């Protein structure tokens, strides 16, 4: 399902083994501007959704990101 997929992709970007849906992204050491850019690029390439950095400001967890993607895709 999409949630698991997003967690895997985020773990990859943050260079950690696993991310749970409720983990706070900003608590990871690797959560910096490069990670934010990588997330924006991943969401664009894999889900066809264009997120601004401002959109991401309101997102604190993988779950939040999945919800934002679903909302932007209109489903």
């Amino acid at each position: 399902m999409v949630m698991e997929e997003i967690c895997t992709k985020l773990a990859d970007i943050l260079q950690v083994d696993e991310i749970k849906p409720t983990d706070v992204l900003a608590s990871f050491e690797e959560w910096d501007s490069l990670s934010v850019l990588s997330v924006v690029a991943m969401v664009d390439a894999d889900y066809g959704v264009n997120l601004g950095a401002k959109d991401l400001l309101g997102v604190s967890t993988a779950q939040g990101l999945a919800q934002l993607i679903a909302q932007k895709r209109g489903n």
Partner: protein
Amino acid sequence: MPANQRSFVDEMANFKFSLARSLKLKEVMGYDTHRIVDGPVCSSDLACFGLQHLFRNNLLSPDGFDALYVVTQSPDYLMPPTSNVIQGRLGLKHDMFCMDINQGCAGFVIGLLQSFLLLNQPSVNRVVLINVDVLSRKTSARDRNSYPLIGDAASITVIERCEDATPIHSNLKMDGAGREALMIPAGGMRLPSSPDTAVVEDDGDNNFRAKDHLRMDGSAVFNFVQVEVPPMIEELLRTAGATTEEIDFFLFHQPNRFMLQKLADKMKVPYEKMPNNIVEHYGNASGVTIPMAICHNLRERLLSGSVRACLAGFGVGLTWASMLMRLGPLDFCDLVEFP
């Protein structure tokens, strides 16, 4: 371009990020070496050096052109125009149209467009277009967001009428609502430079810069490029009746390798048709990156023949512009070092 070369690895210690993260950034963005001016070198210094090189090598005559466009965002002075400064320093003829254009990343395409328009005037036979920036002087060395990719350089393009030229197609878009994505906040009339604007502080993202410094909202710029550039190219090709496959090279502005690869992916263009290697060698010198991409990657080919090229610039403004043209054969296509 300046002979002075700096390397990302040497500069990593200036940033407030772990070395591991900075190395990751280097790998993803393709940062390696960049060329920046050493000391208080100005735009007109690079431009005059380049023009004198052309004069000395009989590639251009000092009185052989009727207009001088200078596209820069780092002028010598707020006034007079840098084009007039260059004209005066080199003692060029008075019967000359000098004009500065305040544009950056899209500045090469915009400069070409303006040059073509001017060549419609019967009294104008040849236009010299100079793109130049020394923005390293306005970028904080402690700003990992901008400093690693910045480059200084000038390019000189000589444009003249050609009776048997093939059509050139172009389109251009602007959106001033996005003006804050790339800006130098202080130093103009809105916020004059003062001791306050020179204070270097953490901008909230572990990058240290002053209001006098260039600042870039990397994610916003990335987003803008991915959203706006592919449809602009589609529109250009559609108008010209061309397909992506028929284009030999996509010679795009060079913000960094990452952004260009994502753009190529989105446009379904093979990487070898869209060079992305300028930032790693020289840095991003705004409007100069397209000429640099041409000289670095296609020199031999363009001296002897021609390619069907799609040019595109995108960035500060926001501005995005593209152009489809047959490029070459060129008389001259060299990179020259400013000592």
